[in-house]
């Protein structure tokens, strides 16, 4: 028999590994998919960003002013805090054990404390990996330049390196502690069922809060801005500046203006750590019993199921299934929030730079509608549709798909029509309505009405592009990680750049009614053509796709066919398998 301490250590190690890999929901992946590959992709993405942060240093060269160094210090700290904050919010579900964990582990002789330690350790490991990969290159290159302010030389450089990494890890601990604290306090104060309901909303709100603060926080790194009396109140509410002060303190280059910020950072770390750890620990023991008693997914209302109709039976069925899944499945809702959050950040950053948003909000700018708003509205429309397309490609419960396969009693075009309707109701119409309300409230003019008309047509075209070759039901097809879809990246880039040009053109033609009508007709024709093409491709499809499959490792070149020798598909497949 093993000693109890050894057993606990072994249990901890096993659970830690299992929870670390479960940061990604396995149910989303295809049977052949590899979780570690997906985690590797995330790490590569962060490392790529880290490389971008040093791009200017490597290729730009030239001297760096102390002011720019302060800006860069703040940027790196704020970005690390944002990433850790977002990853913590994305891992929200992993903090507490779910029903499956409890059902599997409760009958086993595993202590709640072991489970808790394994969960938190796995999360800390995932967050540490994010911090490490995000700073993998910038965290080695930039400290060399930051050492200029603490005397330089090898000693100064190592001092800066240590200060840099210590600041990043402490900032990460602060963010993680804040997220833990919010979740822990909410779960302590609310009954489990209400917590589940509020938890999803809280998660989305925090997610958008992090992004908004990151984008709109003003640049106050310069010594003058730091001591300006009008900025003092703002600085007390912006944690990224506290950690800038902390870095300056640890780096040994602190100006007096940074002292209160550094003090605030230390206090923040202490409070976040204590409150986060205590509340989650208390909530853990309180919730364990209740997890089994209450379902993970909050049941729907008692409304009559037949009262809502959105076209044919199939259209209604697919739409209601999509809406209910988005509303009740936390991982899908979070995925959509991440996507919308990124869109929100892009749009906000663009508007901030092109319009000086803060001035506009304070009424300093004029009343005329700017082309930037047109660009922003087109982006919102395109990204809303692309976001829904991305999210509905992720399955909910692969093993429950059999019911859709058993009831597949119509052709693919009928399903396409139902999916199209779901796209309109979930993405295009809400995005259009949001833009219409915002625009018409501020500028109730005919030009805006014309823009909204064009925006509707753009929405129709993007919906058809998203549906091209998409022969899957929402939330039913398995997902293979690691597929680099170059064409998607290409079209994604176009979606970013085309509106920049198109909106300027639109602004001009809105003043010329005849040209405007011609463009309307042209876009209507494009939308009709795209719809026809999507339907034609669906007609040629035999059945819906439920299982994503790896592309064949060998492709035949059909050389014999090129020489005029007919080659059937089966023969081609046979020859490729023989080659294998």
């Amino acid at each position, binding site marked *: 028999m093993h000693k109890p301490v050894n057993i606990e250590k072994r249990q901890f190690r096993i659970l830690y590994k299992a929870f670390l890999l479960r940061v990604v929901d396995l149910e989303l992946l295809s049977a052949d998919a590899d979780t570690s590959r997906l985690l590797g992709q995330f790490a590569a993405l962060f490392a790529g960003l880290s490389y971008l942060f040093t791009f200017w240093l490597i290729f730009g060269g030239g001297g760096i002013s102390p002011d720019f160094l302060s800006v860069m210090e703040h940027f790196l700290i704020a970005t690390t805090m944002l990433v850790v904050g977002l990853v913590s919010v994305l891992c929200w579900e992993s903090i507490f054990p779910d029903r499956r964990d409890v059902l599997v582990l409760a009958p086993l002789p595993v202590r709640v404390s072991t489970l808790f330690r394994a969960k938190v350790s796995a999360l800390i490991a995932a967050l540490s990996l994010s911090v490490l990969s995000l700073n993998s290159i910038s965290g080695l290159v930039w400290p060399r330049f930051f050492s200029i302010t603490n005397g330089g030389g090898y000693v100064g450089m190592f001092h800066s390196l240590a200060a840099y990494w210590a600041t990043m890890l402490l900032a990460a601990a602060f963010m993680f502690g804040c997220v833990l604290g919010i979740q822990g306090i909410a779960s302590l104060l609310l009954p489990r069922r209400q917590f589940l309901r509020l938890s999803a909303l809280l998660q989305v709100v925090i997610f958008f809060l992090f992004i908004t603060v990151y984008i709109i926080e003003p640049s106050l790194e310069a010594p003058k801005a730091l001591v300006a009396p009008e900025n003092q109140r703002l600085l007390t509410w912006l944690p990224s500046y506290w950690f800038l002060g902390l870095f300056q303190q640890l780096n040994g280059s602190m100006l007096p203006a940074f002292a209160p910020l550094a003090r605030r950072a230390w206090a923040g770390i202490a409070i976040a750590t204590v409150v986060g750890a205590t509340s989650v620990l208390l909530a853990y023991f309180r919730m364990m019993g209740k997890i089994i008693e209450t379902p993970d997914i*909050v049941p*729907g209302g008692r409304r009559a199921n037949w009262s809502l109709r959105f076209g044919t*039976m199939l259209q209604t*069925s697919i739409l209601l299934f999509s809406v209910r899944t988005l509303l009740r499945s936390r991982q899908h809702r979070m995925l959509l929030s991440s996507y919308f959050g990124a869109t929100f950040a892009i749009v906000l950053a663009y508007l901030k730079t092109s319009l000086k948003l803060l001035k506009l909000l304070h009424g300093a700018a004029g009343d005329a509608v700017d082309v930037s708003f047109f660009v922003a509205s087109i982006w919102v429309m395109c990204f809303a549709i692309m976001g829904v397309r991305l999210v509905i490609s992720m399955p*909910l419960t692969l093993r*429950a798909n059999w*019911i859709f396969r058993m009831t*597949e*009693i119509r052709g693919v075009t009928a399903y396409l029509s139902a999916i199209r309707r779901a796209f309109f109701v979930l993405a295009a119409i809400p995005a259009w309505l949001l833009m219409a309300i915002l625009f018409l409230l501020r500028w109730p003019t005919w030009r805006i009405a014309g823009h909204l008309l064009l925006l509707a047509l753009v929405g129709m075209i993007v919906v058809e592009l998203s549906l091209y070759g998409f022969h899957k039901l929402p939330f039913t097809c398995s997902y293979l990680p690691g597929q680099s879809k170059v064409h998607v990246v290409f079209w994604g880039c176009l979606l970013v750049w085309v509106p920049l040009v198109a909106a300027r053109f639109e602004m001009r033609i809105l003043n010329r009614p005849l040209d405007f009508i011609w463009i309307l007709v042209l876009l209507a024709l494009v939308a009709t053509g795209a719809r026809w093409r999507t339907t034609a491709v669906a007609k040629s499809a035999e059945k819906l796709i439920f299982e994503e499959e790896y592309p064949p490792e060998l492709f035949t070149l059909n050389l014999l066919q090129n020489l005029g020798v007919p080659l059937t598909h089966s023969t081609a497949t046979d020859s490729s398998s023989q080659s294998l």
Partner: protein
Amino acid sequence: MLEIRNVSKRYSSIPAVENVSFCARAGEVTGYLGPNGSGKSTTMKMITGLIETNSGSILFDGAPIHDDLMAYKQRMGYVPEEPYLYTHLSGAEYLVMVAQLRNLGRKLATERIDGLLRLFALYDDRHVAISAYSKGMRQKILLAAALLHNPYLVLLDEPFSGLDVGSSLILRSLIEELARRGKVVLFSSHELETVERISSHIVILHRGKIVADDSIERLRTLMSLPTLEGIFSQLAVEQDTVAISKQIADLIHA
């Protein structure tokens, strides 16, 4: 009539079923038996069209099912072995979704769903998420979803799994009643007593091959055994069950 002709299925060159042939006739209950891993569920999935055969054909009313799979699916009701459902939906929402997917008329579907929920004693829990349902409740939802469109071919893979005694008795009578009304009923189960009581025709599968295909009476006569349990043990159980149980007890005692 459902006819399975020389059907074989391999998974990565490992045979799951080999040359399986049998018929399930209208008005009869065909019991499909076999030990775990014998290929019962694979056969069921091939009959539903969920997986394809490697060789052989499956005919329904004389025509291969894949000739018009959609029409075939309209006439078929299926209860799978595992109760996998969309647990974020309530029982009523799930059944309404199935009715809509099957293109049932609104009035007819409402009547049937309400009726089935009441008869299966699920009406009070119809708005509760399926994730909170017990195994038996989930099984009842699967049965209701399979019968909602009044199928002509009823395929039941372990339909008694998780049901309480009362519900099992209802289901037993229901299967007999469906057959009496001229439907083709094929069901697999490990409850030999139930199978013996309600099946007019038995097919026993062992290691992917058919080892018996006849009426119970004829099997009893041919094998000179009084019960289906005896017949099944002789044909499909290779192990010495008493010896194995002793070995298990010895192992955990050591």
